[in-house]
């Protein structure tokens, strides 16, 4: 996502982008495609995969998880992590998987449109 912001510099946290409303849900769903994870793992994964652009507010993350769980897009159960810590693991439900597909295409249409307006060309070559 080259045009979403400046390249980050690890040392200046101000350069990290606070997530837009709704995008967090999408990212969580995407993270869970590969299998179940606990909250901390999801946060790490999002930060890492966005090349540390995104700053995940952990309070918001857990509320988002709760929200998705209430909507039955994800399910949760307590388990044990690789290093033997007790943790609550989240995994995608069938409904969540379907939502992920829908939200992804929605998002791509949005970014394409934004790119057209801001740069005069589609923002993402893959689209």
């Amino acid at each position, binding site marked *: 996502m080259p045009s979403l912001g400046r390249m980050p510099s690890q040392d200046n946290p101000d350069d990290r982008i606070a997530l837009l409303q709704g995008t967090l849900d999408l990212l969580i769903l995407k993270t869970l495609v590969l299998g179940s994870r606990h909250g901390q793992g999801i946060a790490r994964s999002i930060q890492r995969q966005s090349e540390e652009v995104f700053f995940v507010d952990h*309070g918001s993350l857990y509320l988002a998880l709760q929200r998705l769980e209430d909507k039955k897009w994800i399910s949760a159960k307590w388990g044990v992590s690789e290093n033997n810590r007790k*943790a609550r693991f989240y995994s995608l439900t069938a409904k969540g998987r379907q939502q992920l597909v829908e939200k992804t295409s929605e998002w791509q249409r949005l970014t394409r449109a934004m790119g057209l307006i801001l740069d005069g060309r589609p923002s993402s070559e893959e689209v």
Partner: protein
Amino acid sequence: MFRRRRSADDFAEEIKSHFELEADELQSEGLSEEEARRRARVEFGNAQTAQERFYLRSRIVWFDNLLHDIKFAIRQLMRNPSFTSVAIVTLALGIAANSTIFSWINSTLLDPIPGIEHTSDMITIMRGERSEHPTPPFSYLDFADLRDSTRSFTGLLAYHDDYMTITGSDKPERLYGALVSSNYFEVLGVRPILGRSLESTAPNERLGTAEAVLGHGLWQKRFGADPSIIGKTIQINLHPYEIVGVAPEGFQGCKSGIRSELWIPVGMDSQVWGEGRRIKDRGTFWLNVLGKLKPGVDHRQAETELNLLMRHLVEQFPDAHQGPNMISSDPLWRSPFGVNVYLSGTLPVLLALALVLLLLACANVANLLLVRSVARRRELAIRLSMGASRWRLVLQLMVENGMIAMAGGGLALLLTTWTAHGMPAFLPTTNLPLTMNGSVDRTVLLATIMISLLTAAVSGVLPALRASSLSPMSALKDEALSISGGIHKSRLAGGLVVGQIALSLLLLVCAGLFVRSLQSEQNSNPGFDPNHVFLAYFDLRPTGYSRAQGIAFDRQMLTRVKSLPGVQSVTLGDFSPLSFTIHSNIFEPEGYVPGKNESMEVDRGEVGPEYLQTVRTALIEGRDFTDSDDDRARPVSIVNKALADRYWPGQNAIGKRLHIAGRWRTVVGVAANGKYRRLVYDPAPLVLIPIFQSYQTFQVLYVRVAGDPLSYGSSVERTIHGLNSDLPLFSETTLSANMRIGNAFERIAAAVAGSFGLLALILAAIGVYGVVAYATKQRTHEIGIRMALGAGKRDIFRQVLGRGLHFAGLGLVLGLMISFALTRYLRGMLYGVGTADWLTFVMVAILLCVATLIACFVPARRAASIDPMQALRTE
């Protein structure tokens, strides 16, 4: 959908595990354990906030808040008991006014026939001219034909109610009972609790079956709730009946507000009242008819169908249907038969007045709340600046107000349990089986709660919005610098006071109009002199006298009572004026040709010798009845002037003949007009006939005496019992007391409206006092400065007073406009006074002005006596 929610503990656990996982990972990236923990916490942000947000997401929060608000509200209210108690009492009065009237409406208009099913599907059916005091409109034969041919009703029932006497025991008992059609209980949906209904008498309806259904009260009182009563015999008017059923508790027949205690088949008419002719005669109208509509049929369709059927009957039997024959119907709540016909006009108006009173009480409490919110500015400002949302503050204030209103509602309910039973207080002791009364049941309870909640909202919402609209900074600053930035700037408070004065003016005007109407009614000339007349009611039927014996008894009684010391004259009647006891008959005046469908029904009284002399009705021409107007003399009658003028205009009525009660009678006297039904009616045409030429067993003895009539009770009673020791006198009263039944409804309206007006006056005065006193107190500083600058005590006094009068003036103008616009709806309820009666308006305006002045006087004097030095120093 119900979903088990996650607990806050579980969430905290998850966050704890997050810290551990993150610390593990950081440690594995090479940080020290301590540093890793610290970083994990920092990265996460504020865990407390996250948990709080989780907690806020769950829906239980509002409930926790509410509990908290209620606790806080109670603490706040306890802290200021004078405010709290004044507010509670004010609202309680307003709410009680409404719940009282509602309890009356609930048990009269909303429950016109207690104990039946489907009240809303039932309609009463009227034939002929509409009137407030209709006679029963149907003959048995017409009723039977209509019942058999109608398709609009699941059933039509008929009844005729009157007094009956239970005989055959030592203690004859007179009570109200009804002759009913065989389907009576089935159409009403009333199932006897013992035995059966009268349905099985259907094949023999016209000839009659000697069976009776007892009322629950009668069964309990007279028969000790005997469970094996069925099959036993009861003697009614000397004729034996088999008891076949007992009606359920609460059922009292079909006439609103009148209690029947006994039901027997309609065919028994001749055995009960010796009127064997009625059931066979198509032209004798004596039955009231009610119908239960078929599902999907509305009363208009039913009316149309009945009119069609009635037209056929009129064509078939024109001689029996000479008067108007239009059929109309009414829902039970305003049925023309029974008490509701009077209450259905009065009670809704009183409820409207009660609502105005409640609005006034709300305005008062709103003012109190405004004053209080100014005193609480600091508290509210601090809470706002601590981050409470405005919405939370409004909610908090509304909860406080809700507590006040609920407390007021509770107090009002307590009051209502007492006032609900207040209606009978307006009725004189009467032998009419009136049951109109209110009671507190579940509906009244619910209504009171609803009214209380409404009250809370109406009185609280403006002050709460206003109180919470302050900006914390300015409020705190304001508070710190001066206390004068308060309510006197508030247009809201001023507006409320103006509104209060306007509303109380409206209530006072209504009260004034009702009271003046009652006065002019009571001062109106009834056409007789009700003072110093003793009345005794009795019924000769249970004595078993023949007609000749009865007349002989009457003569003896009249002679003996007349000879008692202090008795001036004495007579008999089959009615007493203004107590709903006069009858009416179809009559035919000689030489008068009725218009098509003209009603020839006229009030008819049977009276003894010297009737006019005893009640002191002026004789215009001719003579009074004498002792010799009996069977041996020619049939005679006396008419009143209204009758003579209407049917024989410009002619001499003396010597004319009229046909009434089965005979042609010669007019021997013309009496002055009098009022016999209600004082508010114009005098109606009247025919009097000698009781000895007709004879009714139900009689009223009139005794004109010197001094207090009731003191003659025992000697009259002794005299009568000297003639027949078994004859029960079931009511001893005076003519003036007895006629109070005729204006009970006007007295209810005047008393209720009057007390509402008084309360309104007090509330308005308190309101004005509160606002002016508070504003003056707030301006102590300013007044101090003015006085220091040379203003005299008189100027200050005048200024504060002027402020109060300013409110009063605006309120009066507004109130007068509202009153002029609204009082016209009282037109039908007023007698002898116009709806825009200037005297009432002026008196009320002056009264309110004086009250406002007095309310302003105290604070004005206090302001004038301010010591400027001290006032300035207190700042």
